[in-house]
């Protein structure tokens, strides 16, 4: 059992951004939720974080997630009530009593939202989630892969609108509703029995986020040292020579050519959608999703999201290994490069000097 204190929030925020792999809301958006979480923790006291072994297998865990573009929140501010509203709306259809809050997506803003809900409801948080990082689609969770239900699903927005969706193919419907709700919305999915969630999910992702936050806030260490301590490596340091983005299909796509600063006339290419998905050097894929890729500003050391990477920026590209659950053959197909439309196979994570 761990009591999450307000002074841990900054580390946690940095950690979830690292797990975001460039997506799930960048530093700026996460910072807003970090402020909300810190405020809640001060108001309602620390959140009890239960490790998987400590949780009651018979209890039910609620999961919450934001859908849409976190950047829109600058224009459309959250009220702070959306998650509770959504849970209430859901409970009108499904009277399962909720005994805990569990994670859905550990990477990006969605790594913080369940903790805010737990603080507000005074429920414990069980350290498990469905991704162990950030992914763009609702069905890209280990819960979903294990056949656990996502619907009925309640979706709300700050204006008070709410919808309860019960359908297969929730992805498309949820996104349609989200667009009509104004760019982003809060979702609460059908509560999962904790035993099922713990078996199917990725346990320990909050601890991992805290660990990464701890490591990456040690600015006295070199990037290589911090990457090594995180279990990954630094791919290269490079200057953005070209950025191309296009908005065809469901998610924005982009490709970035980084001119390596350590070698003459050599480039590293990053393929991105919501997240950084593939890194190639000279036509050879080096790191591929679901392994994580983070770009860190070479000067400030802060993570740079896919949306904010721009021409001329000098960044360190850091690769971190994926949660082991995704690498199982039956799971890989959901999240490997082909799932994102790239004609490439997953490359096993290996240390490239």
């Amino acid at each position, binding site marked *: 059992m761990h009591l999450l204190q307000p002074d841990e929030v900054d580390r946690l925020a940095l950690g979830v951004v690292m797990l975001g792999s460039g997506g799930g809301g960048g530093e700026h958006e996460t910072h807003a939720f970090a402020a909300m979480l810190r405020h809640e923790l001060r108001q309602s006291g620390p959140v009890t974080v239960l490790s998987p072994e400590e949780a009651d297998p018979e209890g039910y865990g609620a999961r919450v997630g934001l859908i849409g573009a976190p950047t829109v929140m600058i224009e459309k501010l959250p009220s702070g009530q959306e998650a509770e509203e959504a849970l209430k709306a859901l409970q009108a259809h499904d009277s399962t009593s909720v005994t805990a809050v569990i994670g859905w997506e550990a990477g990006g803003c969605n790594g913080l939202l369940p903790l805010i809900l737990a603080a507000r409801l005074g429920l414990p948080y069980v350290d498990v989630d469905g991704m162990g990082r950030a992914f763009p689609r609702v069905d890209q969770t280990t819960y979903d892969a294990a056949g656990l239900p996502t619907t009925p699903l309640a979706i709300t927005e700050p204006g008070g609108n709410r919808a309860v969706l019960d359908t297969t193919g929730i992805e498309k419907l949820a996104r349609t509703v989200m667009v009509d709700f104004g760019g982003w919305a809060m979702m609460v999915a059908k509560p999962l029995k904790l035993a099922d969630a713990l078996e199917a999910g990725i346990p320990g992702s909050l601890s991992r986020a805290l660990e990464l936050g701890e490591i990456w806030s040690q600015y006295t260490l070199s990037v290589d040292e911090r990457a090594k301590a995180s279990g990954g490596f630094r791919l290269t340091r490079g200057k953005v*020579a*070209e950025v*191309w983005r*296009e908005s*065809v299909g469901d998610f924005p796509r982009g*490709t970035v*050519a980084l*001119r390596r600063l350590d070698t003459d*006339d050599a*480039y590293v*290419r990053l*393929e991105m959608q919501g997240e950084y998905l*593939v890194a*190639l050097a*000279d*036509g*050879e*894929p080096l790191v591929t999703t679901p392994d994580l890729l983070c770009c860190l500003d070479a000067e400030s050391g802060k993570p740079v999201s896919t949306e904010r990477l721009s021409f001329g920026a000098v960044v360190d590209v850091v690769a971190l290994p994926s949660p082991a659950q995704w690498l199982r053959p039956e799971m890989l197909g959901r999240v490997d490069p082909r799932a994102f439309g*790239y*004609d*490439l196979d997953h490359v096993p994570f290996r240390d490239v000097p």
Partner: protein
Amino acid sequence: MIDDADSLTVRDLLEIGVLGDDACLLAGERGVDTEVADVRLAADMTAVEACSAGDLVILTGHQPYLVEVALRRAYSADVRAVVLVRPSAGSYQPPSTATISFANRLGVPLLQTRADDPLLVADSLRTAVRRPEVAAARLLNAVTARLGRSKPDPRSVITILSGELHVTCAVMSADGTAIEGVSPPGLPPDLLVGSVATTVELPEGVAVAVPVETDRTGHVHLWLVSHTRGRNKRWAETVQQISQVASWALGNWVAAERLETERRARSRGSLLAELLAAGDDVPPHLVQQAVLAGWRLDGWHTGVYVMPNPPAPNCFDTAHTERLRVELSRRGLHGQLVEGAEGWSFWLTNDAEPPQSQHRELTARLAQALGASTLVAGVGRPHPGSSGVGRTLAEAREAAAMTGAAKVVHIDELGVRRLLSMAAETPALVEQATRLLEPLTGVEDGQLLRTLAVYLDEESVTSSAAVRLKVHRNTVAQRINRAEQLLGVSLLNPDERLAVHLACRAVRASDE
């Protein structure tokens, strides 16, 4: 199987145009001289991986990462080139700097072409590489089809050849002048000396010359020269074969043009003959034909008849006519020139009656234009209207027949001469004159008769006759006195003077 000498390289494929008009090499120039053995279309990485050494890969995707991965696999599999197909419409991301830099480092040629269907690019490339004779046949087909549809003049033929074969063409005369199109740079001057199709290597590619028109002696007047940038032997042969076919079309054109020119000359000749025969009353259909021939019938016409002296029946062809036309127009004489059986009719037309001074100037210019040739010319008086053409030309012709030693004669000069020549030609008159002047024959070694003739020619002025005869004028006066006594006439009497003068001329003319 194709033997090595004929295999196409990546450069050949680019230069012979099978990749399309918009094809270009983006990167990897180092590898363009490698030979291509086969062509593959790759829609995904699996297809790229299936390629083997010597292949050329056409990639249907163009995402930067895909192109880079394909380049890497192409390099390790010894693939000869990667071709990107840019759709004519829709989104396309041209290869990025990083991709181009990578291709350059690998030395794998990266090409880009524009086509709606990559399959068509693959088909034409594969045919060119594997079955060059089929590619050549297709080109031949296309060229003949287009030749059949268009006018076979040099301009169209050149357009068709350069469009289908991606060559630069010129129709050239044997002296190396490009009649149509652009002569390839660095073309050796002796290329157009022979009489059979020739292929020669130039600094940039190969030039193929095929004869278009050969005369009976085997001399080639006109050549079709095609310049291709590719150096492939088989390709040069294809260009030669297709140029050969195009040259027949051009030969056809030459023949048709020549026939038309001849026909036009003949019809103008007969039109003029009809016009002359019509005299004063020109029927409307003749007027119409004359207008269609570009002749102006109103205004004042001054006719000129040019003919060889002595007559030479073999010199009336279009070449001579053309030369004469050029000579005349160079002297500012812009008129209608019509070739006839014995000479050329030529006339100038003025709005108003030309001044008397014109004929002297015209005579001088004509003399210049005819120069040292054997041609002589007669000039008619200006006559107005459509019938005037016939009249002035008739006068000109008359004058031309009477030129004698002169080059150009005006009909006005002809009146006196003619009278005198008639006198010289009338035997009775000559007999009379001889009898009249009998008393003076042989007297003082003919001096008396000569003095008399000069004295009368000089209008009975003693001093003028003395100057011409280089004697004192008293001598002239005494001789005339003696002659009067011998002949028994008085030169003060106008009748007697005229009779004596005429007799002098007649005798002199008959002596000559």
